[in-house]
């Protein structure tokens, strides 16, 4: 691996660098602009929340940042690679090594057990002894007794814990979370977000999370607002005010 940015000290190298990102969707009659001129930089190890209402464009932004989709204009640089210029397959390759996901609707494969779901990224990434590692992670998220249960036999909170274990399994350098507590009640949501933040801190992962949950956003080191496709970052004082 020869990453030019490896020569720089890690703290100086942004994990994610987005410049002038615009995304448009063609409808039958006209074109809809979903994101307009978004630029941001996220450093290694930072946790970032992007807050906005439904339809503000935050999920689209997350998809573009993670390389699940390509923007109409602008560029996304993830850990030194300009992913907006990569092919779909190259982006997939990059994701398998460096990116983890947590989704609002969990996205566990219904036919697989909890253990198998967590093993999935380990198997795909060619890790050694995936089963032992998956078991360890499930124990870490408190599901050591539920290894062989399928998603249908688990509650929403438990499913999201499995999803979190899966997300951290391949030790990604960046984790994207899409409304991770959106489908959970307050109490369970709080437990899940505790877990997410703890693991994130332990593994030193960069976290990018979209949410409309102000409390969850407050636990991140930085946060952005998005409204009608335009991203703004409140000043530090505003951010601390929001936390209080």
């Amino acid at each position, binding site marked *: 691996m020869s990453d030019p940015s490896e020569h720089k000290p890690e703290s100086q190298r942004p994990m994610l660098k987005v410049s002038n990102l615009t995304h448009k969707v063609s409808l039958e009659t006209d074109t809809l602009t979903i994101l307009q001129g978004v630029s941001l930089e996220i450093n290694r190890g930072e946790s970032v929340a992007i807050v906005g209402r439904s339809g503000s464009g935050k*999920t*689209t932004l*997350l*998809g573009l940042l*993670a390389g*699940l*989709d390509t923007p109409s204009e602008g560029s996304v640089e993830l850990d030194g690679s300009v992913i907006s210029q990569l092919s*779909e*397959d190259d982006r*997939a*390759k*990059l*994701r*398998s*090594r460096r*990116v983890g*996901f947590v*989704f609002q609707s969990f*996205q566990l*494969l*219904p*036919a*697989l057990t909890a253990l*198998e779901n967590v093993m*999935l*990224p380990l*198997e*795909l*990434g*060619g890790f050694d002894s995936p089963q032992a590692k998956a078991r360890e992670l499930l124990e870490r998220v408190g599901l050591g007794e539920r290894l062989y249960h*399928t998603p*249908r036999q688990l509650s929403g909170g438990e499913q999201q814990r499995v999803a979190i274990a899966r997300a951290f399994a391949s030790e990604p350098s960046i984790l994207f979370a*899409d409304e991770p507590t959106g489908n959970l009640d307050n109490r369970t949501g709080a437990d899940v977000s505790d877990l997410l933040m703890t693991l994130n801190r332990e593994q030193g992962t960069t976290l990018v999370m979209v949410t409309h949950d102000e409390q969850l956003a407050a636990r991140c080191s930085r946060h952005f607002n998005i409204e009608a496709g335009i991203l703004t970052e409140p000043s530090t004082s505003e951010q601390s005010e929001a936390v209080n």
Partner: protein
Amino acid sequence: MAASKKLMSVKRDWRERDVRVVLSALVIAVATVATIALFASQLQRTLVSSASSFLAADRQLEAENGRPVPQAWMQEAEQRGLETARMVEFSTMVYGADNFQLVSVKAVNNEYPLRGQVEYQVGADAARQTVSHGPPPGEVWINPRLLRLLELGIGDSLEVGNHELTISGLLVREPDGGFNMSSLAPRVMMHVDDVEPTGVIKEGSRVEYVYLFAGEESALNDYYSWLQPQLEPSHEWEGVRDGETFSRSLERAERFLLLGGSLAVMLAAVAVAVASRQYALSQRDTVALLKTLGVSSKGIGRLYIRRLALWGIVGAIGGLLVALPLYWLMSSVLGDVLEQQIDYQLDPNALAPALLTALVSLFAFAYPPIRRLRNVPAMRVLRSQPGESGREAVPDLIIAAVAIFGLVWMYAREISLVLSLLGGLAFLLGTLGLLGWLLVSTLRKISGGGNAWRLALVGLYRHRRASLSQIAVFAMTLMLAATLILVRTSLLDDWQAQLPEDAPNHFLINISPQAVDEVDEFWSERGHPLEQLYPMVRGRLTELNGQPVKEAVTKEERVGALNRELNLTWMEELPEDNEVVAGEWFEEGQTDGVSIEAELAGKLGVSVGDELGFTIGSDKVTETVTSIRTVQWDSMKPNFYMAFPPGGGLEDMPATWITAFFLPADMKGELNDFSRRFPTVSVLEIDHVIERIQAIVRQVTQAIEAILALILAAALVVMAAVVSATMQDRQREGALLRTLGGRQSLLVRSTMLEFALLGFFAGILGVVAAEGAVWALQFRMFEGEFRWHWQAVLPIPLLSALVLALFGRWQLKPVLSVSPMLLLRRLE
């Protein structure tokens, strides 16, 4: 690559409902096609061997040139592991104490017969014995009539040429006696070693050497390939297929099995298609997730291809595990019916179509949507994306159609069959398109309400896409099943008509003109009047357009009919089952002309207007061909190559009369009376031949019913698979309706009604399409006449409505048994 390999696991896949449906469909596909194909090949072998006894062997080689075949030919056959026997047939005078008589001799060796048995008795009132040999050297078994004609008894001597033999039995029937009117002289059966001492066979004698062969079909065919280049025109190689008597029944049975197998192939393909397509479409979310986890498009493609291949193998093995016991079961039932030893054989030619059907349909149907899975955007994990539009399914449909018909063609090699079924399906899909339009435009106007009928109709409209595709599959399935039911019915009717219970089973031959009225009276008094008597004159065809016929016809075309005397007749009316294919039948009062049998005319190259010359005794008769007609040789009625008009060329020739009539088994005793009163009339008993054919027809009928049952079971499973494809959506809807306050009874009634309507529409379509396919098949494959099967038009749609209503009820079960909340959560 490694990634896709790591995700391969039958255990994991098995937990997915859609995978289980695909695997079940594969197992059913392989099981049905393999069972039918194995059983059909078994039945074919069994029928051939049960029919073989008509030749007393599996094959016969006849040398009509009066010379034995080279010894090396027989040695070669034995080296190839074939059983052989030989016999010599000739006509000669035999002498008793005071009388003499022209007889037809059959001299057999120790091995005769290779198939079937000889029946004889040691006195007119003695019990009949069935044995697997002919008389030993020094003895003869003779026709009972000859005993009377010569005024001899059992134990007396019979002089054949220079040799004296002892009459030790009365010949009741010979396995290869069949139905051969060309030798009307009474039969004498002797040992072949006694032929030489008689001294009757000299250079130029009219004698026929016949060689019998039995053994494995492949060994027989190999031997024939070796033998064929050495055969001369006067050598004739005969198999059961060429035997006239019942080749048609056999052929039709085989065709039915072929049709059954082809329909099984199609049904199996449909089952696999529905299941695998459903699976492919359900994989979109999984693919999106795998993509976010970093699997490339190529990796996705490889993963699914490997999965399909894995299931193909698992399904094929599962299918064979089901098929083999079924095949053994059906075959042993067949063996019991036939009272015959069954040799179980896993014919690879029968297994290949099953495996190919499963794999081809799996890939042809599942691959196109799976290939498109590669294009599923990873973004789908974050936000649901539109599914496939109908447009993408059009090329799939074309690939599917090509695959199905390729398979049927490969299985049946019968283009008319493929086209008939294709026509039926095209009609079906066309009508369905129209129905779809009607559904959308009429049902749209109905608004919902608390009434079950309304809810059902609204349901049909709201699910119109699923409904139409379900109707398509149901109708297709029903069409295939109905086709088989209809063909079976008309096939059985046709057989029954061909050989009714009272089909003529005895022939009276050699009735002198003076005795005709008395003979008629004899049987009328006993309640069995003779239907139709035909005059018969023996004569040879000697000239064609003024030229000697043997010169006019090239050597290769020389046919048996030229080497022997033909039975000529005159008749006024064309027999019912004959058909004039060229020229005109005799007009009333017409006295000139001759009508010739079509096949012989073809071999001789004779057409209407040609002049035929006959030698009858010392007389010559010349007539112009005025018509060519086909003859049903297997009709068990007197049939003739040449027919003259009454008052025509044969009128003054010495004629005897012939007739056929039905005599029930309990009146066989009357034959003894008859023979005493009319000692010169030959009685030809063909009741055993008829019984045999009827037995074969019964066996085949049973086999047909078994295959039909199997196909219907497969059809039911296909329908269940289709219903279960939309089960989840419907359950969710049902749960929602209940949550919103729908009463259980309303839900049940409207769902059952909706499915019943689906079933009814599909049933009507299926039956009409089946009628069309049967119409085409009847013409091309079964040569029968087509008629509408009104009796099937209503029951099939009603039955399918009922079955589907029950399916609908069945899939509602979980909706009714648990709380709506629990169900909604489960279906999340």
